[in-house]
């Protein structure tokens, strides 16, 4: 295994890079060939490109809204699953409840990442983000509510008293029948 790595890594003496990403001619040592223009095609027909851009922005917004609303479907399904699971503590209901808690949490953590592809200075992403947040928080609330209905949240007095030992007694007494 190491041998193979050595062949591929250390064995390379020289390389030619044919790709060229630079756009500024001055950064290069070699001049552009005559007749070659580095100007991008978009700048050429700006009218069609703007149209395209608008369409793309619209499309992005639309997609963002779709993404923002996607937890709703999830929410409905979760609700259905929870209803199916019933109110008793067993493997199924606990699994459902924990996934119901974990999904919104992970979604909330990755809000930025989810809307990354739609990032555009022309697209207003605040509203979809808020809706997304709200729906996920709703999902979280549903999960917590389920947790509570399962009796796994310390919301009752009994949860706090159960661990208390019985109180000490001040007086001590002993005795009984006399020995025979």
């Amino acid at each position, binding site marked *: 295994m190491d041998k193979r790595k050595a062949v591929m890594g250390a064995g390379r003496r020289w390389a030619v890079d044919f790709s060229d990403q630079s756009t500024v001619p001055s950064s290069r040592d070699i001049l552009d060939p005559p007749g070659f223009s580095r100007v991008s095609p978009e700048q050429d027909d700006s009218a069609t490109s703007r149209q395209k851009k608008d369409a793309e922005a619209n499309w992005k917004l639309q997609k963002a809204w779709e993404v923002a609303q996607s937890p709703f479907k999830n929410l409905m399904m979760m609700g259905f699953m929870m209803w199916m699971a019933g109110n008793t*503590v067993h493997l199924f209901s606990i699994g459902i409840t924990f996934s119901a808690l974990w999904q919104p949490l992970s979604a909330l953590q990755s809000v930025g990442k989810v809307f990354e592809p739609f990032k555009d200075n022309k697209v207003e992403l605040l509203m979809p983000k808020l809706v997304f947040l709200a729906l996920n928080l709703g999902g979280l609330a549903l999960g917590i509510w389920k947790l509570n209905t399962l009796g796994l949240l310390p919301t*009752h007095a*009994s949860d*706090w008293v159960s661990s208390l*030992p019985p*109180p000490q007694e001040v007086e001590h007494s002993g005795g*009984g029948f006399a020995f025979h």
Partner: protein
Amino acid sequence: MAIRVSLLLLVFLSSAVVSFSLYEDQVGLMDWHQRYIGKVKHAVFHTQKTGRKRVIVSTEENVVASLDLRHGEMFWRHVLGTNDAIDGVDIALGKYVITLSSQGSMLRAWNLPDGQMVWETSLHSAQSSKSLLSVPINLKVDKDYPILAFGGGYLHAVSAVDGEVLWKKDFTAEGFEVQRVLQPPESSIIYVLGFLHSSEAVVYQIDSKTGEVVAQKSMVFPGGFSGAISSVSSDKVVVLDSTRSILVTIGFLDGDINFQKTPISDLVKNSGNAEILSPLLSNMLAVKVNKRTIFVRVGGEGKLEVVDSLSDETAMSDSLPVADDQVAFASAHHEGSKIHLMVKLVDDLDTVLLRESIEMDQHRGRVHKVFINNYIKTDRSNGFRALIVMEDHSLLLLQQGAIVWSREEGLASVTDVTTAELPVEKDGVSVAKVEHTLVDWLKGHMLKLKGSLLLASLEDVAAIQEMRMKSSGRSKLTRDHNGFRKLFIALTRAGKLFALHTGDGRIVWSMLLNSPTKSEACERPSGINLYQWQVPHHHAMDENPSVLVVGRCGSDSSAPGVLSFVDVYTGKEISSSDIGHSVVRVMPLPFTDSTEQRLHLIADTEGHVHLYPKTSEALSIFQREFQNVYWYTVEGDDGIIRGHGMKSSCAGETADEYCFTTKELWTVVFPSESEKIISTLTRKPNEVVHTQAKVSTDQDLLYKYVSRNLLFVATVSPKGAGEIGSVTPEESALVVYLIDTITGRILHRLSHQGCQGPVHAVFSENWVVYHYFNLRAHKYEVTVVEIYDQSRAENKNVWKLVLGKHNLTAPISSYSRPEMFTKSQSYFFAQSVKTIAVTSTAKGITSKQLLIGTIGDQILALDKRFVDPRRTLNPSQAEKEEGIIPLTDSLPIIPQSYITHSLKVEGLRGIVTAPAKLESTTHVFAYGVDLFYTRLAPSKTYDSLTDDFSYALLLITIVALVAAIYITWVISEKKELSEKWR
């Protein structure tokens, strides 16, 4: 959340259908059973030339048994009831064992080889009297001599073949006491000798065929007789007169009675009161006088002469015919660490047939009884074997100067039990020693794996079973981290302490409290009770734990007491002291000193209490809590319960600063015409309660009233105190009380009309379960009472509880008059009960089981869930999930939940439970004539893997997974490489 986990777990467990039965191959893995017979009263040898040599014994535990003379094993055994004491045992017709029991009213014949009952005859009895059994020595097989049984004022002649009563004769006349029934061999006349009003000797001659009185003679003796009598030959008896200073020989040859008086002072100088000893010696009698045993030969004309004298401690056997019309007897006495056994001829005491000295364990005490038997040696001389009963009730067979076998029969009469820890494992000893090598370990687990995959052959199964039995040092003498290895310290009626190992039930050490080496003022203290004196943990680990044995120098309650402290690890007595005051009650206090010695209060008959240990540290601890220590007395005969408080040091009366006077604070008087106390009970002082709250289905809270100062009292109407069914339901009532023993306040009273005792109860946490008889329903009933605290029920605000703003853990006083309420429910129970106990675990989290000792001497484990007052006919879904069982009118008896499975703990008297370190597990020890031990897990072992767990399977799975991961990784690497080359 974490708070809920344990609860969750319990819900899980309770919802599962728990079965407590075990598989056939699990028997004997955790439990052990030991069979005993008790202190031997009579022994009859059966040593024919052919066949197995055996000895038939009857004991003080009402057992008749047949023992193998070679090894001491039991061939068979029958335990008669507690009220069926055996008066006589003999062998008839060479094949039947005849027992006379119940004061001469029950005659039974058992088949000698296998112990099957052949016949049983209930004899008519009119009054209580001594009972006598006379089985004729049957020389001619064809002639059926009747068995003569006297008891209850009647003499019965019973056929030995079928137990038919041939005739009976009434001797119930006023003031007449039958003393002896004599049947001279080869004679058809039976002599019945009795005393009329202790002053007139009457002899009846009865025809043994018909039972008719042939002749009757009587003669008045002016001095009067005392009870003791010794028959020296077929026509002579010797009695003591009422002053116990004159021996009277009564001859009734041919029906003529003659008296011959011999003052004991003629025989022995400076004689005091004499006592006739029981051995049956021909033409000789043994008299105990001046602390010596003298042998008196009875001459032909009734002349008495002293032939020998022995020390007081000598035990003697009955006489035994040896060859050539000679009669021998054995005597045994203790000297130092040896026992001297001598067999002499009765006619010629100088001829010693056998003289043996046998080294004997100091802790067996003195010799109490000797039974001898002879056999013909290969050189045609007489050999003797002696069965001896020692002071500690043990039974030994001596032959040719050695102990052939011994049986620790003291364990048949255990009176008190406590538990003790084993020593901590030292660094030098490690588990590796037990597990030998890794190869062996793997082999063992491979076998187990085979077993669990049903691949094992028969030999493999046997190997697995054997491996399990001796697995992982279950009988090691060190503590284990699960707390499965422990010692049970048992005190027996003989005053001997035994330490029994929980692993295999062997005796780790034993100690006789009154060993003969001690020569103190109190020579033979009788042990009363056992207490844990010192249980070192935390800061006193280097101290050995010890137990306190409280004893008394006599049977009288005002006799001075004796304290003995015994080291649990070594079984040696650390110290013992005569405390100089009587012992009426012992109260362990909930305080310990810096060396973990528990403080004890001992009350005497004068109403003073004495503090132990007598150290200044203990005194200062006690003085701090002086005002908070109370004690109560139950006077069952008067129907009074009194409460006492501490008053002051009794420095005014004595200089003893550890003595305190008390004052009476309260009395509860039960009306003597309607109520009689039959049972009282408190919680076990060392019981651990995990929580004070009980959560019901709808998250509602109930606060348990958990108090150590609660006394459960059961009373019945005096008429109903007798046998079940002796009263009508209208006349009998059972009333139970819960009384606070600090203030005397009656917290609860519950009356059961038409019910009767005996009451067997168990008190744990905040509930009492008791068992009694319902006369109206003709059934036994079980009632549960649960006690809850109303005054703390207001603590329901979650936020206050979260922030800790509550007083639920503040110390409470009985004077604060807590409001309480109870919930109760009753059920029918199909069985009669001998004793009830409850399981106890280390933290009190595990659910509890009632352990019911049934009349069949088995132990039934019944879930506490079955005796829950919240049971209803139709529990809601939530209640069902919580584990509430639908209410039924009777408690189920599931055969699989007998923890004794197929065994019987004969003569069951008590059940002791002790927690293991593992929360799920509890030790159960039951004692009676037999001993039984097992480990129980009332909610299954949820905190440990079972012994059956296949580690090999787990290991193989892990190895296979690792291998699979490696292989797939290699494959994926290769694939990636080939992808790259493409």
